[in-house]
């Protein structure tokens, strides 16, 4: 199913109107300049003036990251239920599905990136702010177990407000469950790259987001264990500017590199190849098929 993209929808409405509606312009929250939404989409939702990285939906993220047509989704039908009978959760889940067009806060699968095969998981801020429920944890765990079984690298794009309160302690248990699967994958000598995107906080930061062999981040992403408001309430003072930004985490030694969105695919490809991935070439695939055909 095609992801919902508010900018695209606005684009469609343009064709029906002779006048350019205001909605066609998006105000950049950082430089405050208006940006034409079609320009923004073409620019991978990065502000052409100040390089602010707008949040990207999970489907769009997959589209710009993997080789065209190579994505095979895992467990697309897996859905959360109101396991501890938490007030209003059933309705919230229903709304999250409607708003995001997805069944959960993460999409997992197998794909090729620059020709290199990898298992990927992409979290989705449009589904309950990427919170970690049991199905989120299960899909990520299964993705790692698959990668371990087939000796594949894993790339996880994180975005999360943290644990999913509505699943109580079972949400907390996902931190241990996913960490166990990451550890087994790691012990098998396989590569795990995390790509932190804005925002990555709470239980996701305190588990698989910080467990990558290599931890990359998009520019200016907010990354932390506690959210800035919680910290300000605890210490009763204002936080310094850019505290918990990706750049701050590089400085403090918790992120390897900040990588702009436009360079991410190339960076991932280079890292995969340096860790032993062999990019498949389109032509050689055809030759292989030919050969098999000949032998038969």
């Amino acid at each position, binding site marked *: 199913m095609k992801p919902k993209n508010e900018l695209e929808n606005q684009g469609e409405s343009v064709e029906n109107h002779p006048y350019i509606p205001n909605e066609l312009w998006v105000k950049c929250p950082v430089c405050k300049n208006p940006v034409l939404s079609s320009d923004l989409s073409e620019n991978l939702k990065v502000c052409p003036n100040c390089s602010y990285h707008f949040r990207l939906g999970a489907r769009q993220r997959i589209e710009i990251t993997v080789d065209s047509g190579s994505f095979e989704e895992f467990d697309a039908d897996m859905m959360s239920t109101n396991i501890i009978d938490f007030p209003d959760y059933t309705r919230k889940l229903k709304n999250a599905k409607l708003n995001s067009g997805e069944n959960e806060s993460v999409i997992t699968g197998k794909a090729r990136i620059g020709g290199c095969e990898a298992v990927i998981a992409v979290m989705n801020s449009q589904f309950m702010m990427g919170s970690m429920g049991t199905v989120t944890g299960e899909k990520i765990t299964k993705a790692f177990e698959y990668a371990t079984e087939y000796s594949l690298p894993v790339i996880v794009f994180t975005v999360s407000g943290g*644990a999913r309160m509505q699943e*109580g*302690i079972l949400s*907390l*248990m996902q931190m241990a469950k996913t960490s166990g699967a990451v550890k087994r994958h790691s012990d098998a000598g396989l590569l795990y790259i995390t790509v932190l995107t804005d925002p990555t906080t709470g239980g996701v930061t*305190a588990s698989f987001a*910080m467990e990558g062999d290599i931890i990359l981040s998009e520019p200016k992403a907010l990354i932390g*264990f506690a959210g800035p408001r919680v910290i300000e309430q605890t210490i009763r003072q204002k936080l310094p500017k850019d505290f918990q930004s990706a750049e701050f985490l590089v400085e403090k030694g918790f992120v390897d590199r900040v990588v702009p969105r436009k360079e991410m695919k190339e960076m991932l490809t280079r890292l995969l190849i340096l860790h032993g991935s062999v990019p498949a070439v389109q032509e050689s695939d055809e030759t292989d098929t030919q050969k098999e055909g000949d032998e038969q």
Partner: protein
Amino acid sequence: MSAFDSVTAARANDRPTAIDYITRIFGDSFIELHGDRRYADDKAVIAGVAELGGRAVTVIGLEKGRNLKERMERNFGSAHPEGYRKALRLMKQAEKFHRPVICFVDTSGAYCGIGAEERGQGQAIAENLMEMMTLKTPILSILIGEGGSGGALALAVADEVWMLENAIYSVISPEGCASILWKDPTKTAEASECLKLTSQDLFKLGVIERIIREPKTADSIMFDSFKTLISQTIDKLSAADTEAMLNKRYNRFRKF
């Protein structure tokens, strides 16, 4: 007893803390060890080596402090990254010397502050979760008071997890839950019910193996029988084949 009664009891100032358990169970055999070898010694975590039933063990506790002065010193049991790193250092040491690990968990949560973030609170907890899952020695974790989210879990990836009858274990504090859910942090009683955070609830959900009954006052009889129970369990866990133990530990969390 309502869920909120448990919350109140778990947080009560006169409730025994990790030091009480360590003193009453391990007596003079406990030798405290300090520091994470990277940054500092976090007093919210008390850790060391001790003897139990003729066997050397590693003991790690989240310590809230027993009076105001101690509570200030120990940051009310809310550890910084160096606390979790001290715990991990001693767990790795336990693995090296084939000693079982016993953890006493009592914290409202990992500390949320500038230094904690700067030194990688998330990374410190994450590393403990990963490393504990494959630590080649038995781990028993006992929630004695508050089990506050990731800060508690970072000492509770274990072969068995127990709870004192009135301890609580939750993904978020009832206050936090109430303010998000109803924009009203005073609705803690309702939130406590919703979160399923009591020992009974967690036993039903399969999150813990055992509930330790609490007497009206924490007397020595309770500690004596508790000590015997811990000792027997450590013997049982230590008798198992390491690979089988690790598979069981993985599946213990894999099922959720």
